[in-house]
Every structure is written in C-alpha cells, then in structure tokens.
C-alpha cells in the first residue's frame, strides 16, 4: 500500500493531480491512498516551492506541475 500525498494550497491543478494519480493507480492495480495536503507547515517540511507536488511514502517525487501520465506511471512503479 503506497501512501501518496498531493501537496498544494488548494488550487485546481492540485485536484487534477490527485484525480489523475488515483485513476492511474486503479488502472495499474496498485493499491494506493491518495490524500491532498494543504497544511502549509507540512508542505514546508518537504521543502517544496512549486505546487502541485507529489510525495510518495513520505518522499518527494515530483513538483511544479500536473504530472503527465508517463511520469505518474514511473512514480507509482518505483
């Protein structure tokens, strides 16, 4: 079970990112919990400056844009 956090202060792109990851995980049959994190303190602890960003199991995997499909697949399969 992968713990996926989408970091962002709540703009539309963050929602899109979370939805895309959820959909790809389901398709690939990967068990994952996708959670949107809006708490600025938590975002700061990941040292991210551009959102949306994605952390998987507590490690930063992506930042600064809505990741495309290929990027999501690589992130999930690592």
């Amino acid at each position, binding site marked *: 079970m992968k713990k996926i956090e989408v*970091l*962002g*202060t*709540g*703009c539309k*792109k*963050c929602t899109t990112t979370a939805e895309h990851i959820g959909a790809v995980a389901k398709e690939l049959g990967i068990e994952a919990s996708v959670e949107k994190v809006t708490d*600025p*303190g938590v*975002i*700061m602890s990941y*040292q*991210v*400056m*551009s*959102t949306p*960003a994605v952390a998987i199991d507590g490690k930063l995997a992506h930042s*600064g*844009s809505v990741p495309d499909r290929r990027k999501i697949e690589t992130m999930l399969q690592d």
Partner: protein
Amino acid sequence: MLEVFTWLADWLVYGLGGLEPDSKLASSLHFFVEDTTKIFALLVVMIYIIALLRASLNLERVRHYIQQKNRFAGYGLGAGFGAITPFCSCSSIPLFLGFTSAGIPLGITMAFLFTSPIINEVAVIMLWSLLGWEFTLVYIAIGMIVGIGGGMILDTLRGERWLKDFAAKAYSQAAERPATDQPVPEKPSLSLKDRHEFARDELKEIVGRIWQWVIIGVGLGAALHGFVPDGWFAENLGSGQWWNVPVAVFAGLPLYSNATGVIPVMESLILKGLPVGTTLAFCMSTVAASVPEFIMLKQVMQWRLLAIIFVILLVNFMIVGWVINLLSPWLFNGML
C-alpha cells in the same frame, strides 16, 4: 508590421461588416478586432520565445541566488525575479515558506510577491503593443519600485514579528545557521527538445488561463472607446485634482483582475483623458491588491501584518499616481 492588424480590422468591420467608419458601434468593433487579433498574435509568439529562454530558471535556483547577495541587492533581485520567474499565484504560500525557511528576509520575499502580479511577460507584451515602449518602461520601473519600496518598509517595521508561529520559527532557525550550508541547486541541463516542450506547455497553460481576460478586457476597453466621448473624464472628474488618485485606488480595490484584463481598459481610459498617474494607480490597485491573495497569505501571517501590507500597498499606489501625474507632462510629452 503591426499595421497588419489595423488593415485586418478595416477589412472585417468596414468591408465585410459594411459599417460606417464614424459610427459608435463601428469604432468599438474596430478597436475590439484590431486589439484582440494583435494581442493574441503577439502573445503566442512572445510567450513561446520567452519560455524557451527561461526554461532552466526554477525557484530553487532563484532562491539560492538571492540568498548569496547582500540585503540591499536582495530587494532589487527579489523584485526582478518576481517579474521574470514563471509563477502561479497558487504557489504563493509554498514560495513564501521556501524563502522564509531559507532565511531570506520577509521584505525581500514580499518584494518578489508584490512585483510578480504587476510585471510579467503578458503584461509587458500587451503594454508594448497598445501603449508603446516608453510607457512600458515607466510601468516596469513603477512595478519594481512598488515591490522594492514595499519590501524595505516591511523590514524597517520588522514585520517578521507578526508571522504565524511556525513560519517565524522556520525563519529564526535559518538565521542561526550559516547560509553556506545550503546545497547549490544544479542547473538543469536541457536539450532544445526539452526547451521546446516546456515552452509549448507554458504557451498552452498561459493562453488557456488568460484568453477570457483578454476578451473581457479588450471588450470593456472597446466599449469605453466607442461610447464614452473624448475628454469625458477631464470634464467630469476634473483634470487631475489630488483626490482623484485615492478615489481611483479605492475604486480598483474591489475589482479583482490580472494585468491582462486591465491593460486594454487602461489604454482606453488614457485615450479618453484620464490622467496617466490616476490610471496607473487604478490599474495597480486592481492587479496587485487582491482579496484572494490576501486570504492565502493569512495562512502564514497574523492579521496585523496583513493589515500593514495592505496599507503599504495602498499608500504606494497613491504616491505612484500623484508622482506620475506631476511628471507626465515631461514623461509622455506628445506621446499619448
């Protein structure tokens, strides 16, 4: 080169549309067609080229660069990078915390955030094409001064006292460790293809975000252009009494727009005889003092600091208005 768009509008409105050139409707329509086609054509070309150039500029590198400089250079750099860094307002909070937790003074971070909505490539392209390069340079200078000045005042007041606790703590911890501890972010090596892909995505992103604003802005500008008689403002508001400027600033406050939507309106206001300083004060207040932005900043600041920032901005805009009104006979002699 840009006359092409005038001809296009002539042909569409007077030729195909068959409208009389001196009617109000034709005048509005002509303005609308000419400006929208011109703006979109320029935007597409320029956004792509600029994005190619700045593909390797990211916030980590900007932060590192600002950190290395002394405080006074810092304000200028903060405002300068605020102008050129690709940055969406929904990233304000992570950016704010990223800078603060790296020990960058509050005033420098805010110089970045103040300047960012005022100056960006879209605003510059539109100003240049609608109002000419002299005006564009004045606008850029003012945007930088508002950012730098606002930042310096905040630091003089020691505004960091009124950050939310967790942000204040991150800042004081960073101040204790030497800046040299920070790892140097490496410059991403990009092939031409990477740059092209970045630029293409940026173009799609930016045009997707602003096209409605261009239409609304130019539409309003066109309506003003056709239906408000020349010199209306001078007759009805008086020509530049001192109180016009604060009125313009407060009128701009509840209106929330980005620079894209306001600039075509500015063009019309100036052509209709509203003094340039008053127009700029109105524009800045609409663009840079926005309620959504303030609500976001509330997550990292106490009310007191927010109120101070708000007042600093309003006062800055008024000063801009008065000073430019005073200077405009020399600055824009014969140009507008």
